[in-house]
């Protein structure tokens, strides 16, 4: 009884962790399945067939490349614009500052389906041709708010005297930005960029409304789910997951080694 009481926090933690990770494990395990029919929903036998031929499903890898392209450009656009908005909001006093601070949250608060339908209305009225560019514009737009929030938090905690000190030490405006402001704000900007990439790569609702005949990876998965789910979908999911974990582990290793070497010298 006593033992249980002492370890209850550990138990709760482990259970929550399992709750978080279990779905990912299912994705991984089923990437090694060899389903009997068209649907990869029940375990049959172990097989590496899908891993040996990840692009074996018609059109899937094309949609994957398209999704990665869109996510890449949307991330760059949203990060550059969002970081500039965040700096402006924190560092400068101007008339509409309060209003803009609230307006930034509007896209986050708006139900996505409504946003998607409205965007379609907008594009159709403008006579835009639906496809790569309309998806990119839409993605950049909804990622922007998240980047602003992430970068703003970082810039807010930055001592403005650091930039004054740089200017005092013979760094002009450009040098001050490159040598002091940017490196210190970098973790916030990186967090915003990663969030933007994940959101864009993932997006289904807004993309579905505004893509015309273009098919992104989430749309491909949704479309194929009507007719049968290829194991390759799980392979792509698992690969993405492993790449993400590797990036985090490598980043941790680098920063801990840097800290270690700084202390030992």
């Amino acid at each position, binding site marked *: 009884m006593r033992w249980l009481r002492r370890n209850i926090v550990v138990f709760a933690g482990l259970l929550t962790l399992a709750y978080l990770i279990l779905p990912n494990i299912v994705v991984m395990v089923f990437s090694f399945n060899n389903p009997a029919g068209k649907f990869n929903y029940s375990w049959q036998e172990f097989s590496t067939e899908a891993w040996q031929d990840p692009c074996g499903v018609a059109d899937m890898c094309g949609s994957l490349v398209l999704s990665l392209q869109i996510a890449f450009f949307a991330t760059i656009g949203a990060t550059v614009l969002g970081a500039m908005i965040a700096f402006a909001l924190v560092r400068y006093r101007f008339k509409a500052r309060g209003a803009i601070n609230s307006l930034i949250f509007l896209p986050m608060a708006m139900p996505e389906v409504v946003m998607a339908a409205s965007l379609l209305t907008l594009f159709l009225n403008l006579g835009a041709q639906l496809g790569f560019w309309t998806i990119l514009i839409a993605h950049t737009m909804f990622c922007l708010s998240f980047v602003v929030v992430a970068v703003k938090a970082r810039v807010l905690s930055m*001592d403005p*005297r*650091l930039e*004054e*000190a*740089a*200017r*005092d*030490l*013979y*760094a*002009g405006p450009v*040098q001050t930005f490159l*040598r*002091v402001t940017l*490196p*210190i704000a970098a973790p916030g900007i990186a967090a915003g960029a990663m969030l933007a990439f994940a959101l864009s790569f993932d997006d289904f609702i807004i993309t579905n409304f505004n893509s015309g005949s273009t098919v992104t990876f989430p749309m491909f998965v949704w479309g194929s789910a009507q007719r049968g789910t290829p194991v390759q979908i799980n392979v792509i999911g698992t690969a993405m997951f492993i790449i993400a974990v590797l990036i985090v582990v490598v980043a941790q290793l680098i920063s801990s080694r840097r800290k270690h070497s*700084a*202390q030992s*010298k």
Partner: protein
Amino acid sequence: MTDTQAGGDVRLSGISKNYGSFQAVHPLDLTVPQGSFFALLGASGCGKTTTLRMIAGLEDPTTGTVFLGDRDVTGLPPYKRPVNTVFQSYALFPHLTIYENVAFGLRRRGIKSVKKQVGEMLDLVELGDFAQRKPHQLSGGQQQRVAVARALINHPQVLLLDEPLGALDLKLRRQMQLELKRIQTEVGITFVHVTHDQEEAMTMADTVAVMNGGRVEQLGAPAELYENPHTTFVANFLGTSNLIEAEVVSTSAGKVVVSAADATLRLPADRCATAPTTGGKILVGVRPEKISLLHADEAAQITDGRNRLTGTITASSFIGVSTQFVIDSPVCPDLEVYVQNIERDVRLVPGARVVLHWNPEHTFGLDAAQDIDAGVETVGESAS
């Protein structure tokens, strides 16, 4: 060690700063001679930091001109002025090592081989072993020394210090005061030091400018300011003063005679901030340590020609080297007297009748038309 040229004075001419309708600094003329240790002293919000920032170029003056030597630098951005600052929060770059922090200014000016200079500078502030650490791995005192090294390595014409010791504890602050004074003597650069700590200003500076409400109240050597304050603010802000309201009875042969309640006091005419007129009001001041205290039974011992007052002890506190008494007198209900603990008179306890006496030469006179309590520090302010 220095590349400062002759005529490297800092000269502020008619300089002022407004924030909207609030005037932070009133038009101000100030000359800081080259090579001197100059302190701007005042309570928070008196305009001292704004003045410093205008010299650094971090703040644009509303009116007036900043000269370094004969050169008008008013329009120059901070990165083009031969001036460096030690910030209150140190503002060390958190993402750079101590070495790179110190090398920052040299590198920005395109100097390639910085190793020798950085090494020498880190040795000067005794931090040679810490070159590869990050700022957050250092204590407050060490960070402060890095901030000094980072500024000094550039051999500025003027080093500006914005309350650089404010974040340190008392013992470390004393140590750093001596350290900074040593460095200043060694490198011979003009230091302009902003502080709210009057003791710090008096210990370190050759010249102190006392600021109040955006104006310089008085400027001079520490001893001069302490002995001859010209305003009640200076009299109260620098140390403690007993100020007594009195009426001028006569002025002749350089001596002023005044009366207050039951007492008649004398003071030298040349120690009055404004010319006294017979029948006019004046504030008579004397520092607590100039006063001698005797039990009323021994009043006869006091020689003629000394100023004397009677009163009752209301409080006494023993602080080791001296005892501080508060005395209720007809001329003033809370006179302060500091008595050295050489031979303690055990009868001097609260309630005892006493006589206070001092040399009239130690008395100063101030204009009576000002707030008698101006510049009296509250406990909270002096502790911060």
